[in-house]
């Protein structure tokens, strides 16, 4: 079942929640969704999983950008509800009609929602057919649904349908009384029969249906006064099989009004004979009609689409100089996906020329499209410029660090607790871990922090010597144990040493490793687990293209998978190296931040110790879109 459905504004005010569901959600899935998905430009994704103690939810959402509304549905992940998308779309459609910016309570939406939910559920069940579930209960439900649908759609023309209802009932009666003109009645009943048959499959001897059958048959027998039940039944079925196509047309005229006769469909099951006939008749209508109804409603929707399409199409097709000019002055009604596509395509290409990984560019564009679709285009703007500004905002938002990147503050905090602040540098081979470690050490030294290096690269020849040279030049202590030692143990001893000699910061250099190298990744995971560093810095070079995604995600994943602790540590920050070599191809920064969610803490931009900078978010965003 659906756990909860919320409608809220982008500003954060809840406009409507589903009262009758009223299951208290465990944890705060909605806030988590917003913080870690929608605000991270991941809203192009299909669903979001939320784990709380004792609950595993899936969340789906949709936006109404023009009105600034967000619709979120929460359900148990194990259930795989198929109709949620459908339901959200329907809710969005219906609610946007009711919405008024000044209004904050929408209690009148309750009923509409219940109807929509039943509708959506029945539709999803229709998709599941044929299914061997007990036939009657779902049938009845569907029946009801269908009624609801009819009601919803005929709300305007109630009078007319009421008239039809009377007529229909009359027709029914006629059919029963005038037995010899039995073709119509027969066909109708056979229709009902067939639907029941379909649903139950072969074993339609189930008591309930049997009873109905007998009832009806007796009636027919009484009217016709010939043949035995079984034979009749067979005949009827044959008839149904014989001319199933013919069935649905009269059905529709005949049965459309039925919903008007009774709105409360839940309790009329156990009626008398007439009722049951009525019920069966309805049911017979339902199985075909429901489908048809869906079709027709779909086609109506399509029609609507077509209509709007027609309104837009000429504009889009001609799109001469004048019309586009006019559009830009007057402002376009609502942006559609098709309008955005060319601009987004160009933007994606531009991002990719700036070395943004393709996957990331794609996702970003989707997210921007999701945030713009349905919005009104302001006058005197072009689509491309609107998309451009939206993308720039998105980029700034992504690159703006989520956590504090003030390392010095953290160092001072650690100092108060009389603990050394441990930074581990990880990364693939040859990206400049040791060099940038030295730069960070230099920067820390300038701010009167005592630093110690730990040479845990016990793998590559010359690594310890390289670090020792840096240490000598910077005049800071270095902890080394030579080669062929377990780096995790070396790091541990280094930290103990730092506690002894009162160093504030321990910078741990590790061996470079490819992200697919399982043994080395395991060793890294062990190092992290044993020493529990305060900061895990991923060192990545800005030259990297599509591989950035792979590197970071694999590093993160391996750290999580291979960790033996229940709460694995992930990468906390990124150090982007070789930034001076890439000119305007700064895409790697974006790729890395997007994939890991960790901020770029330092940027290495040269060969000397002083060449360490902070990332200027705005200028990066500008460069990316230049």
């Amino acid at each position, binding site marked *: 079942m659906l756990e909860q459905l919320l409608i809220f504004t982008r500003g954060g005010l809840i406009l409507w929640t589903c009262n009758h569901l009223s299951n208290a959600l465990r944890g705060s899935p909605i806030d988590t969704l917003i*913080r870690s998905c929608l605000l991270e430009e991941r809203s192009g994704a299909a669903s979001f999983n939320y784990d709380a103690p004792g609950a595993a939810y899936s969340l789906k959402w949709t936006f109404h950008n023009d009105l600034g509304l967000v619709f979120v549905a929460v359900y148990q992940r194990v259930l795989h509800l198929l109709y949620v998308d459908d339901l959200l779309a329907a809710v969005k459609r219906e609610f946007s009609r009711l919405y008024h910016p000044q209004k904050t309570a929408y209690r009148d939406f309750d009923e509409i929602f219940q109807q929509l939910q039943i509708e959506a559920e029945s539709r999803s069940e229709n998709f599941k057919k044929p299914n061997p579930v007990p036939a009657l209960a779902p049938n009845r439900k569907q029946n009801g649904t269908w009624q609801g649908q009819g009601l919803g759609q005929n709300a305007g023309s109630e009078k007319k349908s009421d008239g039809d209802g009377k007529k229909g009932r009359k027709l029914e009666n006629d059919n029963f009384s005038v037995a010899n003109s039995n073709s119509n009645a027969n066909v109708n009943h056979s229709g009902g029969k067939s639907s029941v048959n379909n649903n139950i499959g072969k074993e339609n001897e189930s008591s309930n249906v049997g009873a109905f059958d007998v009832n009806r048959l007796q009636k027919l027998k009484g009217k016709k006064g010939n043949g035995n039940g079984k034979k009749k039944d067979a005949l009827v079925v044959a008839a149904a099989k014989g001319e199933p196509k013919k069935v649905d047309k009269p059905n529709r005229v005949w049965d459309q009004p039925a919903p008007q006769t009774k709105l409360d469909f839940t309790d009329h099951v156990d009626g008398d004979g007439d009722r049951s006939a009525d019920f069966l008749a309805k049911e017979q209508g339902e199985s075909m009609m429901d489908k048809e109804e869906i079709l027709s409603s779909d086609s109506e929707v399509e029609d609507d689409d077509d209509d709007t399409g027609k309104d837009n199409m000429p504009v889009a097709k001609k799109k001469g100089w004048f019309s586009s000019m006019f559009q830009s002055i007057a402002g376009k009604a609502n942006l559609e996906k098709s309008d955005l596509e060319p601009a987004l395509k160009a933007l994606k290409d531009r991002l990719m020329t700036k070395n943004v990984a393709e996957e990331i560019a794609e996702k970003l564009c989707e997210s921007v499209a999701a945030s713009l679709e349905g919005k009104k285009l302001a006058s005197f703007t072009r689509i491309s410029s609107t998309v451009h500004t939206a993308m720039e905002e998105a980029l700034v938002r992504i690159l703006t660090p989520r956590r504090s990147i003030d390392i010095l503050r953290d160092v001072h905090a650690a100092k108060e607790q009389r603990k050394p602040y441990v930074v581990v540098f990880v990364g693939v081979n040859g990206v400049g871990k040791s060099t940038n470690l030295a730069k960070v050490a230099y920067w820390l030294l300038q701010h009167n922090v005592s630093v110690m290096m730990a040479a845990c690269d016990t793998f590559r020849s010359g690594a310890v010597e390289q670090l020792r040279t840096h240490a000598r030049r910077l005049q800071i202590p270095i902890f080394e144990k030579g080669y062929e030692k377990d780096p995790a143990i070396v790091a541990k001893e280094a930290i103990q040493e730092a506690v002894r000699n009162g160093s504030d910061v321990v910078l741990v250099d590790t061996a470079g490793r490819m992200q697919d190298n399982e043994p080395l990744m395991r060793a890294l995971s062990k190092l992290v687990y044993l020493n529990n560093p305060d900061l895990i810095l991923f060192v990545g070079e800005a030259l990297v293209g599509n591989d950035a995604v792979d590197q970071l995600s694999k590093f993160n994943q391996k750290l999580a998978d291979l960790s033996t602790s229940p709460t694995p540590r992930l990468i906390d920050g990124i150090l982007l190296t070789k930034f001076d070599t890439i000119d305007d191809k700064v895409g790697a920064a974006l790729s890395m931040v997007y994939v890991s969610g960790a901020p770029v803490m330092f940027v290495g931009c040269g060969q000397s110790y002083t060449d360490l900078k902070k990332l200027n978010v705005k200028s990066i965003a500008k460069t990316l879109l230049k």
Partner: protein
Amino acid sequence: MEELEQWKEQLSHFANLALDRLLEVPPNQLYAAAAIVIFTTLLLLSIRLFKRAKSNTVVLAGLSGSGKTVIFYQLRDGSTHQGTVTSMEPNEGTFILHNEKTRKGKIKPVHVVDVPGHSRLRPKLDEYLPQAAGIVFVVDALDFLPNCRAASEYLYDLLTKGSVVRKKIPVLILCNKTDKVTAHTKEFIRKQMEKEIDKLRASRSAISAADIANEFTLGVPGEPFFFTQCSNKVTTADASGLTGEISQLEEFIREHVKQ
């Protein structure tokens, strides 16, 4: 070339004509015209200055989850409606405060902006600060200690922004959720934040100058930091968004957004 000469000649001819016309006009009228021109420009300028001085914008800032949106709706409608979730966009509105709706006479509406507290959306704050008449920094008094550092950092950034310092925009630290029993007092929160900011001052000023961000430094160097050292007025107040106990906030708004 010849054409150009012709044009020049014609132009000088017209100029002469205009000058003659001008000389025909009595000087009195000329002076009057000049006076009118000067007067209107001055008027327009002064109106602009005047308007800026009488801004009516109040900005609600603070960490995500501290209750800004609830307070916004308490100010506007006097109700929290059906609750709120994390904001993705600023809430903005120009309205007469809810508690003043019943009052008679002409009341100047207040422009209230609720800026989302999510760190990714903080750049939005800069858009509203230049026009702010007052800043309300909302702090969660219930869940204060775990968020103390983050809140202090945010407040530090706010207090060192050029647009805030230069215009001496008053800041109110509003301790929200005080209806709960375990909530901290405003004195405690003020002291803790002063301590935190004092530490931040040390680390922030250490960051190399090229890193930017904070154009101004806070407090007096060498002395522990107090909010009283700020060039702008920093006060503290209690509130409870859920129960609608926001009278101190309303006082603050009325103090700085003049009728």
